[in-house]
C-alpha cells in the first residue's frame, strides 16, 4: 500500500489525477475502521492531512466556505457555530471528543452515509459542495452530490475541497436518536429550519432512507408538516432499529423541532 502525502491542494489534485484509485484520508474515523476490519485494502491512500488549503473556513459576502478538513470540534464553537447552529448541534452528537477532534466535514461527505450527522444540517441550509480536480472546480448542490447510500457525485480525479453555504440565520435545530446517550450512530436524525424569511419549512432526515432526504413546505402548512416528514422517509429494518420506529420517531422529532423553532 502506498501512502501519498501532498503538501498543497495542487499537488493533491495532481496525484489524484495520476492515481485516480487513491483513497483520500483526512481524519480517518471511517477509513481506518474499514482498514482495521480488513473491509478495504486500497492500493494507494492519499493523505490530505498536510494540505493547508483544506483546513479552516472563510466568509465572503455572507457566504461561508467551510474547508473539507474542518473538524467537528471546530464546528462546535465560535463564528461558524453562531452562523450554523444546526451544524453545531449535529457536531455535538458525533462520537466522542476524540472522534470529533479527528472527524471532518469532508469525510462525512466523502463517505456519504445516510447516517452522516453533518448531512441533514447542510441539506436544510441548502449547502453546495465544491469539488476540485486538475480540470478545475465545480459546485453541486448537496442534494445532487448525494446520489445513493455511500455513493456521491465525485469523479475519479476529484477531491472534496469545501462546503459552501449561505446561512439562513433562521430558527433551526438538529436532533438525533440513538439507544445510547452518546457515541452512537443515528437510528434516525432530523434537521429543521423554520425559514420565516422565505416562508418555508425545511427538514432533512438521516438514517431513514437510502440518502439523506429533504422535505419542504410553506410555513403556513406547519400543522401537517411533522406527518409529511415521517411519510417522506423510506426507512428499513436493520440492526440499529426498525422501520416502524424510525418513521414514528421522525414524526416526534419533527413536531418537537417545530415547537423549538416556532416558539
Amino acid at each position, binding site marked *: 500500500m502506498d501512502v501519498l502525502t501532498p503538501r498543497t491542494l495542487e499537488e493533491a489534485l495532481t496525484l489524484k489525477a495520476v492515481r485516480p484509485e487513491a483513497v483520500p484520508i483526512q481524519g480517518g474515523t471511517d477509513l481506518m475502521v474499514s482498514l482495521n476490519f480488513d473491509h478495504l485494502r486500497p492500493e494507494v491512500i492519499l493523505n490530505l492531512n498536510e494540505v493547508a488549503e483544506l483546513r479552516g473556513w472563510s466568509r465572503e459576502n455572507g457566504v461561508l466556505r467551510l474547508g473539507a478538513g474542518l473538524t467537528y470540534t471546530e464546528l462546535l464553537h465560535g463564528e461558524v457555530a453562531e452562523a450554523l447552529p444546526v451544524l453545531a448541534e449535529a457536531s455535538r452528537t458525533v462520537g466522542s471528543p476524540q472522534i470529533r477532534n479527528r472527524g471532518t466535514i469532508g469525510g462525512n461527505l466523502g463517505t456519504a452515509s445516510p447516517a452522516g450527522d453533518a448531512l441533514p444540517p447542510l441539506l436544510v441550509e441548502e449547502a453546495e459542495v465544491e469539488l476540485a480536480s486538475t480540470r478545475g472546480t465545480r459546485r453541486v448542490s448537496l442534494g445532487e452530490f448525494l446520489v445513493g447510500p455511500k455513493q456521491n457525485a465525485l469523479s475519479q480525479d476529484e477531491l472534496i475541497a469545501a462546503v459552501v453555504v449561505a446561512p439562513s440565520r433562521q430558527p433551526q435545530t438538529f436532533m438525533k436518536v440513538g439507544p445510547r*446517550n452518546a457515541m452512537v450512530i443515528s437510528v434516525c436524525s432530523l434537521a429543521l429550519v423554520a425559514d420565516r424569511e422565505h416562508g418555508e419549512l425545511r427538514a432533512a432526515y438521516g438514517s431513514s432512507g437510502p440518502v439523506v432526504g429533504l422535505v419542504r413546505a410553506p410555513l403556513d402548512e406547519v400543522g401537517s408538516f411533522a406527518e409529511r416528514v415521517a411519510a417522506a422517509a423510506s426507512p428499513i429494518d436493520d440492526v440499529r432499529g426498525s422501520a416502524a420506529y424510525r418513521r414514528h420517531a421522525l414524526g416526534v422529532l419533527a413536531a*418537537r423541532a417545530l415547537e423549538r423553532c416556532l416558539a
Partner: protein
Amino acid sequence: MTTAALSHGRAETATRRHDAVPKVRGEFAYANDLRAAGMLWGHTVRSPHAHARVVSIDTSEAARMPGVHAVLTHDDVPGRKTYGLDFPDQPVLASDRVRYFGEAVAIVAAEEPEQARRAAEAVRVEYEVLQPIVDPERATESEPLHPPGTTARHGFREDPRPNVVRAMVVTRGDIEAPADVTVSGVYEVGQQDQAFLGPESGLALPDGEGGVDIHVATQWTHVDRDQVAPCLALEPEQVRVHLAGVGGAFGGREDLSMQIHAALLALRTGRPVKMAYNRQESFVGHIHRHPARIWAEHRATKAGQLVSVRMRILLDGGAYASSSEAVLSNACSFAIGPYAVENVEIDGLVVYTNNPPCGAMRGFGAVQTCFAAEAQMDRLAAGLGIDPVELRLLNALEPGGRLATGQVITGSLPTREVIRRAAALPIPEPEELPRDVLRLPGGAGNTTRGEGVRRGVGFAVGFKNLCYSEGFDDYCTARVRLSADGAAEVYCASAEVGQGVHDVILGVARRELGTDDVELVTGSTADVGSAGSTSASRMTWMAAGAVQLACRDALEEQERAGGGEVDVERVYRHPRTFPLDPETGQTTGERSHVAFAVAAMRVVVEVDVELGLTRVVWIGTAQDVGNALNPVAVEGQIEGGTAQGLGLALMEEIQTRDGAILNPNFTDYLMPTFLDMPPVVSDLVEEPEPDAPYGVKGVGEPPTVVSTAAIVSALRDATGRELARVPVRPDDVVGL
C-alpha cells in the same frame, strides 16, 4: 509497592492497586503486547455458515503463499480432536461439520499478520450448507447436532430428546396448594456479550524438547493446560500455561480460544506463534450469555405470602456445551430469588442449537431468572396492592430457611437487612428544567428538552451463590517460600482479571506473615498447583483461604525447623457440596451450594415515552458483602457490575440471523458510556460469612444479577408498560 495492612481483617486505608498506575498510563502489558524473537503470527480460518457439512479443505494454495510457514487442519491435531470445559464436544478444528458461525476450520502461521490473513483467505473450504437450528423451542424436535449421549452419564436427569445439553427439575411441596392470587408472565433475555476490552490474545513458544509454553489472557491457567495437553498429545507437565495481562474476562475467558491453535502452530513450525483476535473475531472467539425464555407463575395469599412458584426456563446453549449445564443448574437453583417458598416446580432445559455458543458470564444463569422473578414480584405486589418492598420483606429468605433445592441456609444471608437498607437510601429530587441535554433521555442527541419525559422508580433483589457447586472439587493452591531473613515469595495461580485479587493475596500474606516484604509470583502452571477459576465470585474467598493456610503453615514449619528457608504448598477447600438429585433437584447432602450473596437495588429513571429513550438518573444499592477486605475495590466491583447489568437492560445484545452475528463490532453492539451510567450509591452490608476466611464474600456478580431487573422495574414504573424482554428496545417503550 503498596501497603495493604489488613488489621481487623480490613485494609485500614484504601490501598492503591499495584496495577492501577501502569494501567492508567498505558504501560501495563496486556496479552496483546506479547512479543518474542522470531515470532510468527497465527490466523484462523472460520466458517461463514452456522451449519454446514465440510466437504473438503484445500490448503495447497495458502501453503505456497509468501511468508507462510504452516497451514493446519483437523488432520494435524495429534491428540484428542475435541475439547470442552465440561464435555469434550467442540472440535479443535472442524472436521466434517461446522455448527456455528465463526467456527474454526483451519489455522495459518506466517511471518506477518497480513500474510497470515491473506493465506487464511486462500484456504479453500467447500461447504454443503445445512438448515441451521436457530429456534431453541424447536431444538428438541430437530436433527441432533451432536452424537446422542454427548452430555449424558453426568448424573443429570435422563432426557432422550435430541439436542438436550441438560434438563432438570427442581420440585418441592405441593404445587397445587391453595392460594388467593395468581400472576404469570413470559420473559425473554437477549444474548449479551462479555465485551472485554482486550480481545483474545496469546503467545505460544516451543521449548525445543517437544513441549510448549503458552502465555495467554485466561481465567484459569490449569484448566487450560488440562484441556490443551491431550489435544497436543502431550503430558500436562509439557504444557506450561502462564497468565498474560488480562483485559477483562467476565466469564468469556473460561473456555479456550487460541490456546491450542497457537500451540499447534508453534510446535509445527518450531517458532513462537502469536495469535491476537480483532474485535470482530472476538465476537465469535468466545461464548456469550445464554438467551433465555422464561415462563413464571407466582401464587400467593391475600396477605402476600408466597404459596407456590412454577417456572419453565429455556436457555439457548448454542453449538457447544461449554458450561451450559452449570448455568442451567444455577438458573434453576436461584430462579425464585431470595424468598422462602414451600411449593416449587422449576423445569429447566438448555439445548444445543446453531446459534453462537453460550457459557459463563457474570451472574451465570441468575441474571436471566432474576429479571423474570423480580418482574413477577412487582406484578404480584401490584395485584395485591402491597408495597413491592414490603412484599419482598414479607417473603425474605433468611438463615434457617430453605432454597428451592431443599438446602437449609446455614451461613450468612442478611436478606431483610439488605432490602431495608437499599429501600432506605434517599432518592434524588427531580432536576429542574431547562437542563443541559446531557442530563436528559437521549443525551447528546438533543432529542428532548423535557417533552415526553416521565420519571420512574424501581426496586429489585438479586441472589446468587458463591464458588462452585454440586459436588465439584473446588480448591485453591498457594505456595509460600520464606527466606531466613523473613522475606517471602507467595505463589498463587489465581488469575487477576482486573478485579484486584492480586492485591487481596498480597494483603493476606502481609497480614499473616507480619511483614511487608512479600512478593507475589503468579500465573504459571509450572510453579504452583491450581487456583481454580477466577469465576463464580469465588477468587477472593479461595485465594485468601489458600494463602492464609500456606502462610500459617510456613511460619509454623520455619519455627519448628528453628529458622532457615522453608517452602510450603497448601491446598484450601471450601466446605464440601453435594449433587442435586436428578429427579427432584433436591440436594443429596447437607448442601449443593456453599454460600450465597444478596443485593438489593433502587433505581430512578427518566424515560422519554414518545421516543422510548432512557436516562438512568440514580442507582442506590445495598449488598451483602461479608467482610469487605477493601471497600474501595468492593465499590468498584459494584459499579462495574451494575454497568454491565444496565447494558443488558437497555442496549447490549448480539443480534443474529440464521445463526450469523449481525453486529460483531462496537459500532452496533452498544455498551453504556459515562453518559448512560449514573453514579452509584453503595451501602455495604457487612455480615461475615462463617465458612469463609476473614468472613469474606465474593462481590462481583450480585450487582450484575440485580441491576437489569431493577432498571427495568423503574422503566415499567415510568411507562406503565410490561417490558417483558431485555434489552428494552425503544419500540417496546413506545408500544410499536
